[in-house]
């Protein structure tokens, strides 16, 4: 199954800039379907980025984060070729993770 996580991590000098796009409906629980039934909330709750065994960024997301959510941040210490692990878990207990190489 294709990963839901797309990552672009680019090291430049001491800093690594990370952009991530995750495929997820991020249903808020406020929208009705075509039959008038509420689509229940289904959204990512936690996203974690790990480098060299250390968590470098944590996202705590609610239903107001857009569908196919995106995040960008930067941290010090990564270098080209290093692994960056991204993992998420949602309110239904579903999860996914991916290891990307820093460019």
């Amino acid at each position, binding site marked *: 199954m294709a990963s839901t996580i797309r990552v672009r991590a680019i090291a430049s000098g001491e*800093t690594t800039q990370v952009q991530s796009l995750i495929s997820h409906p991020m249903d*808020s629980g406020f929208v009705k379907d075509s039959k008038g039934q509420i689509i229940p909330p289904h959204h990512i709750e936690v*996203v974690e980025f790990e480098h060299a065994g*250390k968590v470098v960024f944590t996202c705590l997301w*609610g*239903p107001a984060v857009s569908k196919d959510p995106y*995040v*960008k941040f930067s941290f*010090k210490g990564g270098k080209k070729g290093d692994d960056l692990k991204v993992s998420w878990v949602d309110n239904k207990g579903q999860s996914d993770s991916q290891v990307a190489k820093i460019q």
Partner: protein
Amino acid sequence: MNEVSDAPDQMRRTILKSAVGFAALGLAAGGSLTSAHAAADAKAWPESAFKQKNEADALKALYGKAGEASDKVNLDAPEIAENGAVVPIAIATTLPNVTGISILVLENPYTLAAAYKIPEGTEPSVASRLKMAKTSKVVAVVESGGKLYTATKEVKVTVGGCGG
């Protein structure tokens, strides 16, 4: 209620959730039972903070304190959102010792949209994309040196971002 003291409830929730999760997923892409457990832990999610309906309550639930306006918090948000479903927001700050950044959308059903934990070594900036139900003040919150600093900007929304 501060999120830290909710730990026992969170733990119970997590165990129940993980059980459901495993049942639903079978064995996740990792294959073995140990690698199927995602590193991101649902236990970390501050449920109470995400249910608050105003700025003060959301910040109290999330950080246990109130914020004060600061011109050292930079909030980049459009004046008029092209579509309330996807509003690009970027926050940066020159404040030191930043441990957290969060974003509130005051007119949304739940005020807290997202919160970020910034460990040492990570830059105090974040960009994301949010849903806005209607024209609203957006508040960027930075936790620096144990205190909260905010910047506010109104974003006009002409097409609701919640499916309307």
